């Protein structure tokens, strides 16, 4: 896990469900095929209605048309981020698109687990609704160890909730490494 995560913010609203993160028709691509895998990056967050994509202005795509990598690094979400289906594709597609952290007011449980156990990126919880404070395109810096988020565009700083128990899994890399450390997987 990095000590600092820096990059541009991409802002969305409440209740972003997994169908909006990766629409169901894309779930047929193989995640183990390196070329097909990239398609998940291309379609990450493509199910969000245009007006609500990249707030406050809207009509901004996380990943530009035809590209597989996003120019944004940190997603700012509202309440219940990742609700809906259990598809891990939703967590992985954000990693494939180059997202290193999501900061949301709260998460849906299965999505949160998937992110942590897969070690895809760091899921932070905000202590207030930051998605109305920060605009898409703002430069952010997260201090992972201190649990703070700085908006470099306007110099404002915010506290994040402690990561809690999951930090052990994130530090190990993923749930498999964690289980190995605990002696649950013999090697």
């Amino acid at each position, binding site marked *: 896990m990095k000590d600092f995560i820096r990059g541009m913010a991409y802002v969305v609203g409440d*209740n972003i*469900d997994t*169908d*909006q993160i990766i*629409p*169901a*028709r894309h*779930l*047929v*691509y*193989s*995640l*183990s095929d390196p070329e097909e895998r990239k398609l998940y990056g291309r379609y990450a967050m493509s*199910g*969000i*209605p245009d007006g609500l994509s990249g707030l406050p202005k809207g009509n901004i795509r996380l990943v530009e048309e035809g590209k597989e990598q996003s120019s944004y690094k940190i997603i700012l979400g509202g*309440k*219940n981020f990742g*609700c*809906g*289906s*259990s*598809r*891990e*594709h939703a*967590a992985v597609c954000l990693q494939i698109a180059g997202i290193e952290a999501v900061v949301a007011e*709260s*998460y*849906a*449980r*299965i999505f949160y*687990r*998937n992110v942590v*156990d*897969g070690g895809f990126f760091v899921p932070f919880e905000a202590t207030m609704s930051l998605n109305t404070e920060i605009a898409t395109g703002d430069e952010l810096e997260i201090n992972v160890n201190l649990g703070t988020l700085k908006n470099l565009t306007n110099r404002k700083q915010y506290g994040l909730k402690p990561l809690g*128990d999951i930090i052990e899994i994130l530090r190990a890399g*993923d*749930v*498999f490494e964690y*289980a190995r450390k605990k002696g*649950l*997987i013999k090697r």
Partner: protein
Amino acid sequence: MGAMTLTEKILARHAGRAHVGPGENIWVNVDVLMTHDVCGPGTISIFKKQFGERAKVWDREKVVVIPDHYIFTQDTHAHRNVDILREFVREQELPYFYDVGTERYKGVCHIALPEEGHTRPGEVLFGTDSHTCTAGAFGEFATGIGNTDAALIMGIGKLWVKVPPTMKFVFEGSLPPYLMAKDLILWIIGDIGVDGATYKAIEFAGDGVYSLSMEERMTLCNMVIEAGGKNGVVAPDQVTEEFVRSKTRRPFEPVHNDPDAKYDSVKVYRSQDLEPVVAKPHSPDNRALVREVAGTALDRAYIGSCTGGKLTDFRASARILKGRQVKIDTFIVPATTEVMKGLSTETVDGENLLSIFQKAGARISEGASCAACLGGPADTFGRLNRSEVCISTTSRNFPGRMGSRTAQVYLASPYTVAASAVTGRITDPREFIG
């Protein structure tokens, strides 16, 4: 030692502990791991990467593989997914595989599991699908997980869980004839919101719940995830045990709440006070009384899915559709092949359901599957490809869930959907049922 809820007790037993309490992280032993065509291939590839190409699953008897999502489509990627499942099942010699195009094909996993005796009181079931919580209706701990967690279970038969606190919802009095389990769960989600039960267990209780059939209890538990819940559960009773014993000879040990168990919250409803409801676009908690939105023009009605495509759901729809004509495109999608067969054997006033639906002018799916419940490939039966307004017995109405992002979906009970299909407008089922 403090008293425990049903959920806490099941988890404690599977962790080899005398007691567990909410918030504790524990490793539990898994009784059944279920996967399907959308998440199975990803799970398998992670399993092999982590445990080796030649690794074997921890227990062949405990892995159940049910292709159901993208079945009746020409999409080649979708077919490849089923091929990956076939190969894995062959190599691992898994006994419980319900393959497409064979006699054993079932359809929607959450309905197939109980039909085949894989849901048993007191057990722990994980599945790579969020609606795995449906199986809580059988008095077990059941919840959805992602591919990574499923791959870990495949290898070691265990998973860590944070013990959830339990919210209890009690329904007093049996349901009036125009209400279904779907109305109850939409009512709850409307009250607590789509994140109202995040990280929590929801237990359904009261004589209103215990008077329901297994299928109706499944509808309740099915939509717990729409409130963010970790699992839904109904304490097992005679109805549960009789159902399970009719499906399997495996022994099971029912678990019950301790009398003084502690709940996160308890809410009591009087069934008589409730009315038919819908969830308006685009969220399952966007509740309205049917009479408040009555008259809203519709393009389509959809009756299907693990939430609303069981035999009970079609029997209910048929009661209203019998001898009537639908005014809008109405899609009938049985959840499983067993439900499909039931359409020809079950009758309402002497006429079988299939004939009732055909005469009403509804379109009946050729096969059992998830179909348009989750949109799926463009050629999926019943998929919303434009800006249609649809009333549906399914579980989710987020933007784009049933296909087009510009479509609008109202969620409702089979009664309400059938009544609305007849008039072409959202209609209170009480206009047809006393």
